[in-house]
């Protein structure tokens, strides 16, 4: 009972702190090699949030109000579900479902719906283009994600994330299935439409699905994206980097460190790669990455049979 | 939650789905009606599996098969709509029957 309460508390804390951590880390990653730290790196995200809370939410011509207001909250909710699936230790986990790997797959699929809804419901041209683009992206990465995750579940012979971690006792999946984590990182960039895969909220669409959003709902949307990044990093750390496993430190600290590592990697990729042209992105996903994910799955299957 | 309430819910879903499938003019909406009926059918299958099938695995299998059928139905449905649409530029059931005459 105490542990389930503690794990719920953990989810809430990450939910509250995640956006701030992501914002600060993004700034640190952006300025890292030069060392020239902007003065407001610590306070900047907070004052920006305060500004967004002060700003009024605008209207467009005849938007679908319910969907428009609900979409950011739903995306945040999906991110929270993702966070709840991350095991901090063998017992410290909010929802230890037998099929938690598949549930994470559903989170990815439903995210596509919610992001589409966010762009579609604004009833404006640029958000709509962003929404369509995201569907093309979402339908492309979802299969890659399925194959890679099934690959990670194979050695555990279970669809439960705690079992997946336990199966990495001898060897982490990142070593056992070398293709897995890189492919999964692509999925993560797609899921949060971050950096090179930011096709939905891109600069050439003046902000894409968020182009017409201001004030508190923009704040929720940005927070949801950040929390989704954290949730994804947590799942990636669990499925490929051995979750709570590690010497000397207690399990939850290891999970935290590994999550931050994956997060920093994603943010770094976001800073250093240009946005991939949508057509090229879809071609890449279906022609290169999808077969690679299949190779990953076959590799994992052969290893599981052989072991 | 009991077998009867679950079956009542399934019946309601099937009823609404039947109404949709019969009343909608557009192909795609018609397919939505069919999907809603299958939704009810799946719920009924799982309810029987849980309450009066003693957890026989065939109950779950049936649901999986229905899901596959839904995917097949949707894919074939869309392919037909595309084919018909290209040939006749029609996307409602009535437009199609008029063209046949």
């Amino acid at each position, binding site marked *: 009972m105490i542990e389930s309460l503690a794990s719920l508390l953990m989810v809430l804390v990450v939910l509250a702190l995640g956006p701030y951590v992501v914002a600060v880390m993004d700034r640190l990653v952006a300025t890292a090699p030069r060392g020239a730290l902007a003065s407001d790196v610590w306070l900047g995200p907070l004052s920006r949030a305060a500004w967004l809370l002060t700003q009024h939410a605008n209207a467009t011509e005849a938007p679908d109000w319910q969907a428009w207001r609900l979409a950011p909250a739903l995306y945040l909710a999906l991110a929270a579900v993702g966070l709840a699936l991350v095991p901090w230790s063998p017992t410290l986990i909010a929802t230890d479902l037998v099929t938690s790997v598949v549930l994470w797959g*559903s989170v990815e699929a439903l995210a596509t719906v919610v992001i589409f809804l966010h762009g579609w419901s604004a009833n404006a041209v640029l958000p709509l283009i962003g929404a369509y683009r995201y569907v093309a992206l979402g339908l492309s990465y979802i299969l890659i994600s399925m194959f890679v995750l099934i690959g990670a579940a194979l050695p555990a012979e279970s669809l439960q994330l705690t079992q997946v971690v336990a199966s990495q006792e001898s060897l982490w999946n990142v070593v056992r299935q070398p293709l897995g984590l890189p492919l999964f990182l692509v999925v993560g960039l797609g899921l949060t439409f971050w950096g090179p895969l930011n096709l939905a909220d891109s600069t050439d669409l003046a902000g894409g699905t968020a182009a017409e959003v201001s004030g508190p709902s923009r704040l929720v949307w940005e927070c949801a994206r950040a929390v989704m990044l954290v949730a994804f990093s947590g799942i990636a750390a669990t499925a490929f980097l051995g979750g709570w496993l590690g010497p000397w430190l207690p399990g939850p600290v290891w999970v935290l460190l590994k999550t931050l590592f994956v997060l920093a990697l994603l943010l770094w990729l976001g800073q250093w790669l240009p946005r991939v042209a949508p057509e090229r992105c879809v071609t890449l996903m279906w022609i290169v990455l999808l077969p690679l994910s299949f190779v990953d799955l076959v590799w994992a299957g052969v290893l599981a049979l052989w072991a | 939650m009991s077998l009867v309430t679950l*079956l009542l819910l399934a019946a309601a879903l099937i009823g609404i789905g039947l109404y949709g499938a019969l009343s909608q003019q557009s192909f795609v909406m018609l397919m939505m009606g069919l999907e809603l009926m299958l939704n009810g059918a799946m719920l009924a299958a799982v309810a029987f599996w849980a309450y009066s099938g003693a957890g026989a695995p065939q109950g779950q299998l049936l649901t999986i098969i229905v899901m596959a059928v839904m995917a097949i139905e949707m894919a074939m449905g869309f392919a037909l709509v595309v084919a018909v649409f290209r040939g006749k530029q029609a996307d409602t059931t009535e437009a199609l029957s008029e063209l046949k005459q």
Partner: protein
Amino acid sequence: MEHSIFVDIAFLLLAVLAVVAGWRVFRTDSMVRASFFLLVSFIAVGAIMMLLAAEYLGVAMFFMMAVEMMVMALFMVMFMMNPAGLNPMMMVHQHRLSIIAGAVAFFILAAMALFSSFPADPLPAGLDPVRSLGHEMLGDSMLIFESAGIVLLATMIGVVVLSSHRGRYGAAEEGSVPPGLEPGGDPAGQPEKGESEGGHEHHHHHH
């Protein structure tokens, strides 16, 4: 099966959600909204399945239907005249008949549910539904499962044939070429032939 009052409350809420969302599918103006209402109905039923201990099926329902409804919504936009749902519209026929048919179906099925007696044979304790499903799928019912797989493969091929035997731009065997962007214009998106300086997509000037 023993369960707590919370399960009953959750079931009640989810059941109402499933029915209301299912009903809204056919009463909303926008096709995109309609497909997402259907998705909500599916998600509610999936959650009920999870309450019934069919964990895999419930979760599978989420992701299967999310993708399916997303595709559905896109097809709506492609084929419907009112994609954004800005304009109220009513696209129904044989309305009264349909209502009667729907109601009759409900009452017959409801009567069957209420008045027939089904054996009470709940899930045995210690059953692992996911494992049992897996063993069934790749054990006794392998033939059925594999047939479903073959049917899906056949569907994929059939879909490709149906939607593209005429090719993306005309009959495939005649060498399909995209139409021009203006009537009678040069094919769009094709490299210009025979011009060393390289043509672009939209030539007006032939040298």
